[in-house]
């Protein structure tokens, strides 16, 4: 009977981790639906980017208020989770505060966790106020209605509850330590929870133990539930920010990739010895589709981008099109890509590992032509993203599909392209007049 709590703990722990692992597998499969891209270059630069941008949060602090608040929650999250290690060991072994032997260092650790926990509570409350009372514009865009808004608040509530449970657990523990209750050896420093402890002083020992144990169990179960909430939430960024910054673009932002499939065709056209009437090779593969109309046409890094997006909206708030009331929102491009990818993933799950055409695609069913044509390709969204997401590349891939596969460019652009084709300039001027300016006074 003595080992029942240990067994229950082990079951909960492995179920929590197992379910999470299952979702991560699904996530990885979905990302791999994207096209291959070589990211084996410039490893030192890639590690450097990951350390600076994800670990060092350098782009978060471009906006100082949310940047610093985020830094607190981030540090709190990372550092307080050292405590989870102790909780897991205590849970499995039936010990209490197994690291207490570290003495002064243990007190320092627990004390730091408590101060961070309080700071996290303050930051989370300010975040909630920013989202719900101050009503910052970037949290009010149309794409933030419904689930994304609930998701944002839910994360804050969970974090708040976890921190309160952590401090309650410590407060009850501290009170029991003061009362010299067996099993509760004096260990740790409690700079914050010592102020909560007096609430328990008139309670019976067994009540305080009940509170301590409840807070302990709820805290660890809460953490495991939060871990499993990630896959369904924008909060996935806490994990994916790291690979995403590693795989982020290294080339100058203005350099758009040259499509290789097009290069081949152009070379053939320019080759004077090529026979234009040659019968196509019967074994030739089906010509590659130009551009992207669905998630499978995107590269896997772009799909990783979509799962990494935490919907902060910095991209959208910097977007010149969005600022001037156009429908385009780079954040929506990323959210749509993830939603469609999830839909495709569920389709595959439901059809025994095969995608069965569902008559839908990212273009049109999620992202409209109007959004795509409003982009000025200015790179403000790419620059603004704190985790190296590139919404512009998706917009450009979809424009390529519209123009090269569907000839669906706005008529003004067709005129412009016709001019370039016929006379080498976007306007209807004769190429022979290119130097006339030098003779004009």
């Amino acid at each position, binding site marked *: 009977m003595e080992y029942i709590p240990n067994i229950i703990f082990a079951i909960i722990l492995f179920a929590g981790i197992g379910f999470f692992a299952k979702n991560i597998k699904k996530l990885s499969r979905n990302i791999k639906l994207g096209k291959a891209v070589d990211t084996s270059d410039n490893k030192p630069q890639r590690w450097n980017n990951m350390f600076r941008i994800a670990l060092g949060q350098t782009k978060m602090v471009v906006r100082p208020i949310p940047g610093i608040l985020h830094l607190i929650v981030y540090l709190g999250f990372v550092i307080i989770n050292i405590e989870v290690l102790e909780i897991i060991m205590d849970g499995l072994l039936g010990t209490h505060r197994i690291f207490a032997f570290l003495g002064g260092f243990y007190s320092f650790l627990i004390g730091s966790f408590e101060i961070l926990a309080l700071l996290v509570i303050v930051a989370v409350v300010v975040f909630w106020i920013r989202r719900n009372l101050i009503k910052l514009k970037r949290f009010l865009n149309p794409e933030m209605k419904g689930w994304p808004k609930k998701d944002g608040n839910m994360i804050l509530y969970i974090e708040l509850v976890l921190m309160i449970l952590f401090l309650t657990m410590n407060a009850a523990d501290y009170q029991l330590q003061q009362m010299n209750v067996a099993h509760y050896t004096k260990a740790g420093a409690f700079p914050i929870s010592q102020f909560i402890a007096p609430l328990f002083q008139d309670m019976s020992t067994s009540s305080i133990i009940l509170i301590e144990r409840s807070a302990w169990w709820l805290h660890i179960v809460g953490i495991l539930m939060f871990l499993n909430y990630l896959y369904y939430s924008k909060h996935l960024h806490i994990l994916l920010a790291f690979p995403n910054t590693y795989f982020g673009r290294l*080339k100058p932002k203005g350099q758009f990739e040259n499509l290789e499939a097009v290069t081949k065709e152009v070379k053939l056209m320019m080759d004077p010895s090529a026979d234009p009437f040659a019968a196509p090779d019967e074994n030739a593969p089906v010509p590659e589709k130009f551009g992207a109309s669905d998630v499978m046409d995107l590269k896997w890094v772009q799909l990783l981008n979509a799962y990494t997006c935490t919907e902060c909206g910095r991209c959208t708030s910097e977007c010149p099109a969005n600022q001037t009331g156009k429908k385009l929102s780079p954040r929506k491009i990323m959210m749509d890509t993830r939603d469609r990818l999830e839909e495709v993933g569920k389709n595959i799950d439901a059809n025994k590992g095969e995608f069965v055409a569902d008559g839908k695609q990212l273009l049109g069913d999620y992202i409209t032509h109007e959004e795509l044509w409003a982009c000025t390709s*200015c790179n403000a969204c790419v620059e603004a993203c704190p985790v190296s997401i590139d919404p512009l590349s998706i917009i450009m891939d979809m424009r390529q599909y519209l123009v*090269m596969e569907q000839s669906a460019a706005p008529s003004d652009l067709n005129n412009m392209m016709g001019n370039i084709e016929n006379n080498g300039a976007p306007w209807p001027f004769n190429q022979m007049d290119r130097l006339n300016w030098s003779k004009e006074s």
Partner: protein
Amino acid sequence: MENELKVPTMAELFAAGQQPEVLFWVGCAGSFDDRAKKITKAFVKILNKANVSFAVLGTEESCTGDPAKRAGNEFLFQMQAVTNIEVLNAYEVKKVVTACPHCFNTLKNEYPGLGGNYEVVHHTQFLKQLLEDGRISMEGGQFKGKRITFHDPCYLGRANNVYEAPRDLIRKLDAELVEMKNCKKRGLCCGAGGAQMFKEPEKGSKDVNIERTEQALDIKPEIIAAGCPFCNTMLTDGVKNKEKESSVAVMDIAELIASAEDL
């Protein structure tokens, strides 16, 4: 004639067995747009004054393909690129200077993958180098103390991280360089990029160039300096829309320097 421009073409120099120090890529706007042609001429005046050995392609130049690529027509872009690269390589061009950030970006970043490898600089970088080498001297007189703000072209700034060359040149004019609310990495687009120059904007509450012009007018400049023919057009239109054209001028950096030197 004293002020006649000397604009040699690659073909002429090639026939004479000469190779210029640098090719001036004029670009479509610089060749055909009435406003941008003034920028082209101002830049050539400086090149002439500094005795820079340069040449243009003239009638052998063609659109880089940038607007086609940004509009999604990769096919047309590559056709243009391959044709231009053939011409450039035939003349054994090593270094290219251009006053258009779109041409600059495309030539510098997107041509190498298709066989066109050149050292490509924006005219503000080139002018700064001329100044540092003592080949031009700038007397700020005319612009001394004037409030000048610089609008970062997206394809020069964010796209290629060139922020300081144009600003250094403005400072050299003894002008008071003032920055807009959004500048450098966070500069706001003029609204012309991504082939928007050639189409009507999508439905919205405002045009992008008006938003940007308002940001510029907020800091009360006497001159809005630009480094891109398209930004120049967009901001000139914005200033006209705000009926400020009598008090606020939109000028390219090359024009500022040419008029400071009284060229």
